[in-house]
């Protein structure tokens, strides 16, 4: 895109600047729209699993429900509790929302359709997702209220615990792909199994890693069955209890943008990203971003399906799963995968 703006007669630096801004807008605006629609989809899926109708009043089939909700919270008054730490209280939702958007810079939507094609894309995602916990902690502390604080403590412990095993799972993928660049990781999955199936998930050594990654990404985004941070029956609404108006909306948007990001990561790292499922020339006629979006949507359906059907974990069970099951198993798989790759001479 930089070249296009250079052709319009700009200097390289200005062209780079303008094209980067355009790239950010091209990702962020559709993402916000997607988040609004995906909230609607989420509610529809839960509704149909609970034999209800779900949102069906605003617009055709209730399609405009999220926009109506958005308008409603926009018009509400922003309430800052008098005992709250005002600065942090207002910064916290901004942090959450910004971090939720930042990771999308390195997600490839199609071959080469990526905002920042950097060598360390996967590490960048790990770094940004490890920052995500601050929005929650700051909100919990700055609210100066019991329930948000409990929630913040739960959230930080939970996210740190599951990031460890996510790190090991990603190392297995990186070992097999031989690169941290996400676009190259997608290319490495082309014809991965029998030369015809695209995707690491069909690999017997990486399939268990994908299952663990799916579960860990549920825990990382605090979705059911790991939604202990906003367990309604115990913590009112968790760290968002004291928030109202747009600050509350920023949390919602950030949360769903994170969920979509995790779906995109599942699709990109294990299911071949923008590659079609099978390495057959006919399937390449469909543009890559269609495959990518289909996969993301599929994983989002899995996320809502789980939320609609699975009861919440208890806190000690959550910690047990993270530290006593996922951590040793993922560590074992790092050893097995690297041993297999060394034995078969994959690195030559």
């Amino acid at each position: 895109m930089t070249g296009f703006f250079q052709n319009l007669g700009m200097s390289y630096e200005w062209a780079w600047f303008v094209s980067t801004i355009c790239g950010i807008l091209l990702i962020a605006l559709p993402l916000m729209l997607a988040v609004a629609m995906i909230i609607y989809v989420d509610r529809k899926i839960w509704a149909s699993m609970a034999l209800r109708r779900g949102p069906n009043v605003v617009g055709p089939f209730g399609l405009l429900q999220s926009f109506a909700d958005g308008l409603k919270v926009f018009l509400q008054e922003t309430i800052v509790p008098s005992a709250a730490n005002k600065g942090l209280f207002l910064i916290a939702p901004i942090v959450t929302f910004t971090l939720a958007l930042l990771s999308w810079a390195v997600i490839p939507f199609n071959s080469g359709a990526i905002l920042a094609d950097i060598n360390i894309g996967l590490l960048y995602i790990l770094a940004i997702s490890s920052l995500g916990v601050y929005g929650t902690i700051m909100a919990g502390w700055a609210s100066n209220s019991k329930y948000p604080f409990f929630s913040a403590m739960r959230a930080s412990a939970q996210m740190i615990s599951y990031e460890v095993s996510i790190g090991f799972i990603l190392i297995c993928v990186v070992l097999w792909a031989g690169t941290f660049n996400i676009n190259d990781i997608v290319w490495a999955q082309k014809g991965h199994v029998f030369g015809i199936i695209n995707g690491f998930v069909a690999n017997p050594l990486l399939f268990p890693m994908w299952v663990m990654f799916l579960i860990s990404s549920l825990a990382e985004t605090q979705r059911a069955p790991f939604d202990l941070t906003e367990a309604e029956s115990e913590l009112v609404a968790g760290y968002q209890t004291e928030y109202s108006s747009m600050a509350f909306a920023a949390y919602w948007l950030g949360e769903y943008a994170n969920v979509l990001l995790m779906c995109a990561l599942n699709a990109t790292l294990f299911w071949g990203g923008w590659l079609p499922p099978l390495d057959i020339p006919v399937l390449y006629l469909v543009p890559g971003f269609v495959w990518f979006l289909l996969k993301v949507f599929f994983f989002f359906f899995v996320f809502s399906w789980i939320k609609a059907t699975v009861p919440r974990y208890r806190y000690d069970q959550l910690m047990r799963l993270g530290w006593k099951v996922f951590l040793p198993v993922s560590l074992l798989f790092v050893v097995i995968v690297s041993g297999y790759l060394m034995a078969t001479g994959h690195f030559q």
Partner: protein
Amino acid sequence: MIQTIAFYLFAVLTIASAAATILSRNPVHSVLFLILAFFNAAGLMVLTGAEFIAMLLVIVYVGAVAVLFLFVVMMLDIDFAELRAGFVKNFPLGMLVAVVLLAEMVLGIGAYKAGALDLGTPDGTAATPAGASNVEAIGGLMYSRYLFLFEAAGLILLVAMVGAIVLTHRQRSGTRGQKISKQNARRPDEATVNVKPEVGKGVSL
């Protein structure tokens, strides 16, 4: 142009947030400013071409160490009056530490200027081997030339970890923890029993 702007942005923010870390009265604000300082330092590292180290800084320090730090500071009940009362008493010690740090900094910069250390080029850009990415270059060095140092560092960390676990682990008697494997292994025939008590007699379990 854009590098210069980015450099001054990161550098000014690093120094400002480092100053705010020691100047702010609220310890939670201090930790948050420290995190901002880490983050901007990572930005400076990206500018010098050490993107791998920058990401590790964010993942390890910002993502893990500082979270625990913040956690502890939030739970502490700090008495500010008491803290300020100790200022005069601790002032000489603090000055001593500051002088030692200053001397180390001067020595370090002096050694770097003298060119005794093979760290990089003096203009600030790191000399990565041509054709290798940051990760590969560091990996190549770490697993060949510095293998034993690397393994020694790993052993030290392992010992520290075992030590921490030994220190904090205690066997408590009388607790009724959940043993999930035991629960899963339970079958109906061992969990339930059918009895037919006689009239007027109870059942003992």
